[in-house]
């Protein structure tokens, strides 16, 4: 009964005209940037941060969340029609989506991705409703040592999936944490690393860092890159899948959603890992596995249900533990903190309208998305024909206006440009800026819990491994690191050849 009361509260929050409007704005923008290859949800959420300051916190979160999961719907459209993923997590969809389009089944592919996305998302929402309150209740038992360790786990997980390797990912995390220490230390009141600059006393602003690292530097990377726009014939052929295609899709959709929900909840992994693992798993268990890669409908249903389920369940660690599952989630946490809301296990109890309102808004958002992606699919196909060079100058100005709009200071605009150049140079040297942002958001909280844990243990640093909860979390983090850094594969091969040699003698 408790659950029903909570959902009713959520409905009352989500169904106001203002929240419905911003939910629609969010999912519309999400689909928009998802469709366009080259600009991801991260840059879009970064650019919307300033706008969200003018809204109440729950409305802001509903809109930013809409961008986040809306992009998953849009991402598959370019995958299917152009063989270029609109978002990284839609890259698996290319494998079977593009062959389907070449066979003249683009309509069926787009229709079934929309339905599979909706199915995955709803699956994820149900998992979130059932799991999040339980997890938050459990996390209330956490003491500072456990909080510190869970953050270490989140940061390690975020850096091991980084494409340039775990060591480089961890370096960016450390750099982000250090950047977060700039400004006044809340415990002692002393200023740190400001170099005597007055503007830095309050620390570096999240908006400036996020817009610089992800907005400006992304435009620098893609401004003059080869842009390809869609030149195909548009949507021909039927839209509705046949009866046998429906039947073939049902079990794969459930399996995809399950895999997606799991990897979405796990901090650090996300939609991309979910869709890859979902596809690989389906290829093992499916009876039609020989058709995979040649335009099998399962090949679009599984990754799309997986990445949409993951997009919804990614909110579980973010809202119950305060550990962002991905960089975009870190930005949303930052937005909440700017509104004065501390993320963590108390969030559901202290701001039930925010949490349950968000959950119910997911349902509305997905209905909007289904409308945007089935009857209105033509708009997005036409959008793909628009040359991309209109986009980038517009993005630059939106960043400038956004930064200037919240602080009314041109110093912040210059600072954003500086971070843009830093982000660009880091990218050239193969350092991904994404883990840096997670470190920047979590850093101050991490330091706080570290110092508190040490105080409680009377200065004994073994507290992090003597408390079982904390020790278990750190062990998982160590395992994740070992799994990526150590050359397991080489060892196994060496071992095998050694065995073979022994066998020959």
């Amino acid at each position, binding site marked *: 009964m408790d659950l029903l009361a909570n959902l009713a509260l959520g409905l009352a929050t989500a169904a106001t005209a203002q929240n419905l409007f911003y939910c629609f704005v969010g999912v519309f923008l999400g689909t928009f940037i998802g469709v366009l290859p080259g600009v991801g949800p991260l840059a879009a959420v970064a650019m919307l941060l300033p706008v969200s300051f003018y809204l109440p916190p729950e409305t802001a979160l509903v809109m930013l969340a809409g961008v986040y999961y809306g992009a998953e719907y849009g991402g598959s459209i370019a995958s299917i029609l152009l063989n270029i993923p609109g978002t990284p997590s839609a890259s698996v969809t290319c494998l079977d989506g593009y062959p389907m389009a070449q066979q003249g089944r683009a309509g069926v592919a787009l229709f079934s991705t929309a339905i599979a996305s909706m199915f995955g998302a709803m699956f994820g929402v149900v998992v979130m409703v059932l799991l999040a309150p339980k997890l938050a209740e459990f996390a209330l038992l956490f003491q500072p040592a456990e909080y510190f360790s869970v953050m270490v786990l989140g940061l390690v997980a975020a850096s091991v999936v980084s494409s340039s390797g775990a060591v*480089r990912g961890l370096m960016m995390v*450390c750099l982000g944490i*250090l950047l977060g220490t700039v400004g006044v230390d809340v415990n002692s009141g002393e200023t740190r690393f400001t170099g005597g600059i007055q503007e830095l006393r309050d620390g570096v602003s999240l908006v400036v860092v996020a817009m610089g690292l992800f907005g400006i530097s992304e435009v620098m990377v893609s401004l003059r890159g080869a842009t390809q726009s869609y030149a195909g014939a548009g949507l021909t052929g039927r839209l509705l899948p046949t009866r046998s295609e429906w039947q073939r899709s049902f079990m794969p959709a459930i399996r995809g959603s399950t895999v997606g929900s799991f990897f979405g909840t796990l901090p650090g992994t996300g939609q991309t890992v979910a869709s890859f693992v979902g596809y690989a798993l389906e290829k093992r268990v499916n009876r039609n596995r020989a058709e995979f890669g040649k335009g099998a409908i399962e090949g679009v249903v599984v990754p799309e249900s997986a990445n949409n389920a993951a997009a919804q369940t990614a909110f579980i660690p973010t809202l119950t533990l305060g550990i962002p599952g991905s960089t975009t989630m870190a930005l949303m946490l930052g937005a909440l903190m700017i509104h004065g809301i501390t993320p963590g296990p108390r969030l559901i109890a202290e701001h039930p309208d925010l949490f349950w309102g968000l959950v119910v808004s997911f349902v509305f958002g997905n209905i909007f998305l289904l409308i945007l992606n089935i009857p209105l699919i033509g708009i997005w196909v036409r959008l793909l024909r628009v040359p991309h060079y209109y986009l980038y100058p517009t993005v630059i100005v939106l960043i400038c206006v956004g930064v200037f709009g919240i602080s009314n200071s041109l110093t912040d605009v210059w600072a954003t440009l500086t971070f843009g150049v830093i982000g660009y140079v880091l990218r050239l040297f193969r350092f991904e800026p994404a883990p840096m942002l997670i470190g920047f958001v979590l850093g101050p909280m991490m330091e706080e819990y570290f110092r508190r844990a040490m105080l409680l243990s009377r200065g004994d640093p073994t507290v992090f491994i003597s408390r079982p909860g904390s020790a278990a979390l750190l062990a998982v983090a160590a395992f994740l690191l070992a799994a990526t850094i150590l050359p397991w594969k080489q060892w196994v091969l060496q071992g095998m050849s050694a065995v073979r040699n022994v066998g020959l003698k």
Partner: protein
Amino acid sequence: MRRLISHLGPVIMLMAGLGFAIGAATSLELGSFRRMGPGAFPLLVGAVLSLLALTALIENLRRPMHVDKADPWAVLGVIGGVSAFAFLTPLAGVLPATALAVFATGSVIPEFRWPYRIALALGVSMAVWLIFVLGLGIPFVAIRGL
């Protein structure tokens, strides 16, 4: 040469880590294990970053990581656009600054033709006025002297 440039990445990181660690150790209170001062945590993280950077440097010496080529025109276009916005806003207001910024960034895209660049600059200025000034009611000086 490109090999040497490739090593520069971890070296910069090493310098950043050492910089923070030394800065924390010399100019900030470290405190005790029980009551940590403001310098303890940055010292710890700075040290970890330096160690990681050393690891990456050794790894890079054995197998240099590929470094991407910079695109100076793209960087120049973006810097030009943002600078145009920042310089022109106090002089002429947000809308002229917006138009010039769009124009400046658009100029470095070769296949983007002149009439379209001008049209985009005007269109984006209109949109900024509609969304930010009319819609969200942010108190911008839209056009100075108007």
